[in-house]
């Protein structure tokens, strides 16, 4: 994995990283300086900073942090903060990188978030398989105690289940409360009633890392990079037909071509791109020179950066085989709670598989069109929405390939090694 910035003002989050082990506390302080004290920067000021810098969640939904913080502050009861490092998106590597290499940045951000909402406790959550995160966090907490850092909160580490929905906000809260890793119906939102029925601020670990730097340098510094609508930098995981796949820190709004160049350049011909991971969108390769990784540019193509996964699909891969594998994976990751998701996801996966095998009944493509239209918005979480969008953008981006498979069955590339990663059932990643 390569980890670098693509701009002269970058890296920010990834500054000081060596990849020879976690950035220790002394080095963290040398790179970033100390965290502003509560006397210099109180809770209300932190919320204002989050608002002025337009900080948005980096877990996938890109929800404004300040709105969440205000909702927690407006709720009655002792607040609690959850630092969400459950990177359940199989292709994403940024959260694991932050937890294992830069735990002090995440812990700084969590301290600030706790200050912002008046929380006395922070729960840092990560998946069971992520033993590096646990080791780094334990080590980092020990270093902070030894250095006499007053975080004014109690930290707890929480080991979460190994499922696609484990990091979904209400699913994570459910687990921390002793329940299953299943989304719950909203309302109540965790901001009103979350962990131990308390108002709970759940923030992705990258969001917290950004907060740690914004608190030190201010909203104007943050906005020196990025676009007016989306200031700052963001982490992306670039994979597929690039020479140096890995986690990169980019300026928000960076052109896709520039990102691929930073990742060593494109290797061979590209058939299409997947932007935003398994809840994301397939887009045709012809758009590579035009696309910027911003809401404005991606939104024109009904896409979004989501969790930051960008995959260049090599021309030697089969888009049908890749799409079918992921669709089956997502359909099997349903929490089995909501009828439309249970039945609709299975129907989509089954029909896609039949198309790939060349034995789908006539009307299969029309069925897929109907199901992907009728499914969004009808589950307690967005799994059916994500699956429907993933599949409908695949059908729109690779119509000839799906048509060819429907008529003639598997192509020569179908047997090629899978590019899009599917975690083994019930096992560690």
């Amino acid at each position: 994995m390569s980890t670098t910035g693509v701009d002269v003002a970058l890296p920010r989050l990834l500054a000081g990283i060596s990849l020879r082990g976690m950035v220790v506390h002394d080095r963290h302080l040398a790179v970033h300086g100390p965290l502003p004290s509560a006397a210099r920067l109180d809770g209300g000021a932190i919320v204002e900073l989050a608002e002025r810098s337009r900080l948005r969640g980096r877990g996938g939904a890109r929800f404004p942090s300040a709105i969440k913080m205000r909702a927690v502050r407006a709720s009655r009861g002792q607040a609690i903060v959850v630092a969400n490092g459950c990177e359940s998106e199989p292709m994403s590597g940024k959260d694991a990188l932050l937890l294992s290499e830069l735990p002090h940045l995440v812990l700084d951000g969590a301290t600030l978030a706790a200050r912002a909402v008046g929380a006395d406790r922070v729960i840092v959550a990560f998946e069971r398989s992520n033993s590096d995160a646990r080791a780094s966090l334990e080590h980092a907490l020990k270093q902070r105690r030894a250095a006499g850092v007053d975080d004014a909160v109690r930290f707890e580490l929480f080991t979460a289940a190994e499922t696609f929905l484990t990091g979904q906000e209400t699913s994570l809260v459910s687990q921390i409360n002793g329940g299953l890793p299943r989304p719950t119906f909203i309302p109540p939102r965790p901001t009103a009633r979350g962990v131990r029925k308390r108002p709970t601020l759940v923030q992705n670990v990258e969001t917290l890392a950004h907060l740690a730097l914004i608190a030190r340098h201010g909203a104007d510094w943050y906005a020196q990079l990025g676009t007016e609508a989306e200031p700052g930098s963001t982490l992306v995981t670039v994979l597929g037909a690039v020479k140096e796949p890995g986690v990169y820190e980019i300026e928000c709004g960076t052109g896709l071509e520039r990102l691929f160049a930073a990742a060593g350049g494109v290797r061979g011909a590209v058939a299409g791109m997947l932007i935003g991971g398994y809840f994301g969108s397939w887009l045709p390769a012809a758009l590579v020179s035009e696309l910027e990784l911003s809401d404005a540019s991606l939104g024109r193509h009904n896409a979004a950066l989501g969790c930051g996964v960008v995959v260049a699909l090599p021309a030697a891969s089969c888009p049908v085989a890749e799409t079918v594998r992921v669709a089956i994976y997502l359909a099997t990751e349903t929490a089995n709670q909501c009828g439309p998701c249970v039945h609709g996801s299975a129907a989509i996966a089954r029909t896609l598989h039949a198309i790939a095998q060349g034995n789908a009944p006539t009307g299969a493509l029309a069925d897929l069109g109907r199901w992907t239209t009728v499914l969004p918005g009808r589950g307690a979480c967005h799994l059916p929405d994500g699956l429907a969008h993933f599949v409908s953008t695949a059908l729109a981006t690779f119509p000839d390939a799906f048509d060819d498979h429907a008529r003639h069955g598997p192509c020569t590339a179908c047997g090629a090694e899978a590019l899009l990663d599917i975690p083994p059932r019930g096992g560690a990643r």
Partner: protein
Amino acid sequence: MKIRVNPINCHAHGLCAELFPEWIRLDEWGYPIINPEVVPRELEAHARRAADACPTLALLLTRD
């Protein structure tokens, strides 16, 4: 008034679509597809009847 369903509680009994077909239809698996618009005042009584009839109390009427 708007209508929402709690999809976790809904078990596809289908009474809602039977009682309020102007607003609620069923997908091919029997789960409700609900018109997201505001229910006109003259139809609110139908919405209430549908919500009351749901065996799993999955239909929610929201003020909007």
